[in-house]
């Protein structure tokens, strides 16, 4: 099957004809173009199996990972554009700092409570396990940020990935900074109230995460805090430590 690949390059759109074989993806087409047709085409990739989130781009108008988008269902015409809402470095390569500058705002790292000196006991059916499971595995590929039209309208909006991470940390009983995090996500322009529930992020997430769910949770948590006050957070049980010298 011959596929027409249109690439929105920094220098303008360029069209290539690629002979596509079975089981090939958009990434394979890009490699073919770069290796055989035009060595100056630039794109970014690493793992090629949807684990690193480096090859996000807009494929036929919709965000996707090049490595996990098969050519066949796209038909004979493929248009590739860089991700939206982040600066373009060259061709399909974008500056992910546009994504991480938002991500950093929510202090995305665990800041453990002093009691947490070992892994916690978290039964499979427990609330914490189930809540967190739904939002884990984010690969920070930026597809959700690109798909989010609210970010297009309100550039300060933190966006789906950052808010999803914030919710994960707030739901995590090990974390000590719930109040501070809620203050960040509750802001009027940057925070959750700006979300218009388009759920575009849910539709494009390659890991089937639903950031809108996390945002809805954050809204309700903020309201509950205001109405009934902070929730008591029990100290989780810790797993017995094997070695005494640790």
């Amino acid at each position, binding site marked *: 099957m011959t596929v027409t690949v249109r690439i929105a390059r920094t220098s303008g759109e360029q069209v290539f004809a690629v002979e596509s074989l079975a089981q090939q993806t958009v990434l394979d087409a890009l490699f073919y173009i770069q290796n055989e047709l035009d060595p100056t085409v630039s794109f970014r990739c690493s793992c090629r199996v949807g684990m690193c989130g480096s090859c996000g781009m807009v494929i036929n108008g919709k965000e996707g990972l090049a490595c996990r988008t098969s050519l066949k269902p796209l038909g004979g015409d493929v248009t590739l554009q860089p991700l939206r809402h982040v600066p373009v470095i060259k061709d399909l390569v974008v500056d992910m*700092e546009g994504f*991480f*500058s938002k991500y*950093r*705002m*929510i*202090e995305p790292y665990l800041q453990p409570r002093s009691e947490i000196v070992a892994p916690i006991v978290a039964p499979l059916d427990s609330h914490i396990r189930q809540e967190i499971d739904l939002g884990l595995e984010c690969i920070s590929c930026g597809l959700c940020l690109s798909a989010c039209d609210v970010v297009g*309208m*309100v550039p300060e909006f933190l966006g789906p990935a950052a808010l999803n991470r914030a919710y994960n940390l707030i739901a995590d009983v090990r974390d000590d900074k719930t*109040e*501070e995090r*809620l*203050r*960040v*996500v*509750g*802001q*009027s*322009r*940057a*925070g959750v*109230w700006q979300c218009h529930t388009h759920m575009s992020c849910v539709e494009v997430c390659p890991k089937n995460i639903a950031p809108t769910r996390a945002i809805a949770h954050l*809204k309700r948590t*903020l*309201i509950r*805090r*205001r109405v009934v006050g902070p929730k008591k957070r029990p100290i989780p049980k810790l797993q017995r430590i094997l070695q005494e010298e640790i």
Partner: protein
Amino acid sequence: MATPSPVKPEVSTARSSTPPVSWAWILQRFSGLLLLVFLAGHLWVEHFMNARVDVIASRLTHGIYDTLDIGLLIVVVYHGLNGLRGILKETLEGRAVWLDYTLSCLGIVTVVWGVDILWAFWYHRPFLIF
């Protein structure tokens, strides 16, 4: 050099003791639900009970219907203008205080206008205020 020094959030965490909520957001939901009740009532009264214009007009001289319509008016004006405020705020950088004042005044004027119309029915005279 992309030097990620630890970035602190833009809000001051010192002052407010409770994380902020957006009352506009919350009230928009509540007024929306309330509006649903009022609107259902309004449509029922105006279109299904007896839709003749003079009947509607005479019915409006009864306090119960009047209250229904005043309630609907207040809530719909709030919901509508609050929605408009949200749209305008998106395009306006930062906090535009004058916008809030303008829309509040517009809201009050609209409600007074509407109530005036209703009272005009009630008292069988053109207008009280305008």
